[in-house]
């Protein structure tokens, strides 16, 4: 090891907490043979799913009378079906002992809600082909209290937008008139969406959830000018058209 390496004080690791989605195999019976059969059937249904999947074995929901179970056999059975046991979830002393022997970590019994894993969709659905949605064009004034939403596309307004009116679009918003209401572009999270207007006197503009209200907009030298608004990082940029 060189001298330089010893003086390098930059951290070699970081400890981080993280929430992971993990499959829990919750046993309802201690009959290993039956489990083998049923697991085999599941594997056939969803081979992709059983591909060295990390797993937590939950023994805490076993019925009172059926708590006796050979954990080593259970773990190897899972292994056989290509499920890798990460940990046990148990509280029974005999289970804890067995876990110690197998060198498996133990998690406390869960009180939290769990979601049933849906295996019916074997292969992940192909992302839907993008559907062409015509741009929504509005030619009449949009008054206070009115809301116009261009779902899945752009919105073009060829009239004034009054204070208290709300424009929403999954894509861009163009206003060829004074924009005095609110304009929210990219509301489904499209950060590349933009807002274009002839006169920026809006109550609020927002792109993908990043917003500025009139209080801030008013201070901008481009207030009441023709501008475009775009998002870079989490900053809304206002530039002259």
């Amino acid at each position, binding site marked *: 090891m060189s001298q330089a390496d010893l003086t390098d004080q930059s951290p070699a690791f970081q400890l981080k907490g993280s929430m992971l989605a993990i499959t829990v195999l919750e046993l309802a019976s201690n009959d290993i043979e039956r489990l083998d059969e049923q697991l085999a059937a599941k594997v056939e249904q969803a081979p992709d799913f059983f591909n060295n999947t990390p797993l937590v074995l939950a023994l805490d929901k076993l019925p009172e009378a059926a708590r006796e179970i050979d954990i080593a056999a259970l773990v190897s059975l899972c292994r056989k079906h290509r499920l890798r046991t990460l940990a046990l979830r148990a509280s029974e002393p005999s289970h804890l002992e067995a876990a110690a022997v197998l060198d498996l970590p133990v998690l406390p019994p869960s009180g939290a809600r769990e979601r049933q894993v849906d295996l019916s969709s074997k292969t992940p659905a192909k992302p839907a082909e993008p559907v062409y949605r015509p741009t929504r064009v509005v030619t*009449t*004034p*949009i*008054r*206070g*209290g*009115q809301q116009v939403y261009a779902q899945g596309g752009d919105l073009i307004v060829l*009239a*004034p937008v*009054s*204070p*208290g*009116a709300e424009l929403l679009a999954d894509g861009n918003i163009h206003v060829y008139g004074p924009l*005095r209401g609110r304009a929210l572009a990219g509301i489904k999270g499209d950060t590349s969406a933009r807002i274009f207007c002839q006169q920026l006197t809006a109550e609020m503009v927002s792109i993908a959830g990043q917003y500025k209200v009139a209080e801030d907009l008013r201070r901008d030298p481009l207030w009441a000018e023709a501008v475009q608004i775009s998002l870079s990082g989490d900053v809304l940029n206002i530039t002259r058209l």
Partner: protein
Amino acid sequence: MAKIIVVTSGKGGVGKTTTSAAIGTGLALRGHKTVIVDFDVGLRNLDLIMGCERRVVYDFVNVINGDATLTQALIKDKRLENLYVLAASQTRDKDALTQEGVGKVIDELGKNFEYVICDSPAGIEKGAHLAMYFADEAIVVTNPEVSSVRDSDRMLGLLASKSRRAENGEEPIREHLLLTRYNPERVTKGEMLGVEDVEEILSIRLLGVIPESQAVLKASNQGIPVILDDQSDAGQAYSDAVDRLLGKEVAHRFLDVKKPGFLQRLFGGRE
């Protein structure tokens, strides 16, 4: 077929009833058979402004419920041959109005009159909704101040989306802006919104500007529609507005500050 005109605003106290009375009377003065219907059930005022409060026997709600016929409920104006009033009920509330019932009454009035003026209550609830639902034209009464303009804007949105014409996909309601209680002096001082400001925000055609005037209060208290006071500026302004409503081109008056005359300056007199 009669023209159904709603006089509406959203905000209260801007002069809807005064305007309904003046415009209705103005149309009758020009020979058109006109009826003014008070939609403000529970807060009936039109009969007072029209000076027929002592002759109300049956009202709008009675007609809707079938307790009286239209002929029984219509009150004929004492001054003008062609003018009728249908009063609102004072003892009921807006829930007494139903869309079906109002539709029937409006249809029947439409057969007998050239103009049906619907005096809308304030707000955007049931009463105001039913007053504008059947309309062909709308007079949006607005004061030159921000809250009134905002409410008018909201009302214009409802006119464009919640009326019978909008729901049936017919030609939209023709919208007119009537600016009332206008005081050019305060506009110059920057205390009041100017005509251009309001026109720009609401972007609809301007039917008229009624100056703030002592004559309006006096007329209301006497039960004489202010348009009959042809000496007053407000009366003349309403008269111009009626002409414009009928399609005549009339220049706008009373928009500028009056320069006090020589004698007025000398004696410091105010009217």
